């Protein structure tokens, strides 16, 4: 079940690279794995965009709903993280295709959260045969 806001309006998304949280994600990927994360996987940004449409939030809103500032320090919102963990599972289940493909789509969104500092270890998601 995707989330619409109370007015039923759909969020208007700008190009993914214009969001600070997406830039943070790609920088994190580059720092950890090297390569050119914006281009080396053509599915990466479209998958995140599809998730944003699924939850009706833009990337920065997702990070704002899973983190907060408390006493000047960034903290993880436990309930927000749990909600998004469940939403990613739901999103993954909507993907048509193999177990591997479903896992890849879910893990792409998990990676977005992880590199924005939101710990999200949800275990094995199928993987290779």
């Amino acid at each position: 079940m995707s989330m619409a806001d109370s007015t039923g309006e759909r969020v208007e998304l700008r190009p993914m690279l214009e969001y600070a949280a997406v830039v943070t994600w790609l920088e994190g990927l580059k720092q950890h794995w090297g390569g050119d994360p914006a281009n080396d996987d053509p599915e990466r940004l479209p998958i995140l965009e599809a998730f944003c449409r699924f939850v009706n939030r833009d990337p920065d809103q997702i990070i704002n709903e899973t983190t907060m500032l408390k006493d000047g320090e960034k903290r993880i919102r436990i309930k927000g993280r749990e909600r998004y963990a469940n939403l990613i599972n739901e999103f993954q289940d909507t993907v048509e295709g193999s177990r591997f493909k479903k896992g890849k789509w879910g893990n792409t969104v998990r990676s977005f959260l992880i590199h924005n500092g939101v710990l999200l270890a949800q275990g094995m998601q199928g993987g290779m045969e």
Partner: protein
Amino acid sequence: MEFKEVIGRRRSIRFFDPDRPVERAKIQKMLEAARLASCAVNAHWARAIVGFRDDLTEDQLNRLKTPVAGLNTELAPVHIHFFNDLGVVNRIQGSRLKELVDVGALAPTHGWSHKFVDEFVYPQILKPMTQGPGYPVMSSMDVGVAMCQALLTGVDEGLGVGLVTLNGAVLKEVFKTPDDWIPLSTILVGYPAESWDGGGQRPRPPFEELYFEGEYGRPFPRDPAVVEELKQAKMIQEPAKPHDPKRIEEIKKLAEKYGLPM
């Protein structure tokens, strides 16, 4: 494997082969090693419950897991949960000290006798100690020593091991432990799915920052010849390098194999 190499070879394994079972005999050897650990006043606070991952319900496993240790716990086929049995001192009332007297480990040469234990050590030292605020911390140190021996024995047996802290309240509920047992850490056990060296020995603070001689602030001198000797004995091994392409490639393959985010 030689003792020093066991120490040098130990890594906190985080990628276990989830489908390769661990021989029961190897688990028993780890527990036997824990039982032989050094322990203050011979009390033996350490208790362990061996949990086989596949014996847990999905709900139990999910509730045990913490966000940080969740994946490792899911991958490891065996979990050895260690507890501190806080009640042991007042149950045994010094009797195990008297066993040490009887076997000559504690002797009159050092002031020990049954009467000393019965009239002084237990009532005036040990019993009050159990009522002090520092008691759980002090006694948990001894459990840590026992856990360390189990951990290293696992390495010696060719297993992968890793220490984690799981949800203590759930541990007590699932394993039906007595009220006065404190849940401590869990040793995850399995065969490594990653290379045993995990990219190299993990970063450690400089020796001189940790250990002192005579007084705080005067580092214990580190003799390079001793370091070299320990390298030869494989206790000090090649350190892990930041952004090591070989290690990155290994993690990528493991992520693909097990369907993990990158």
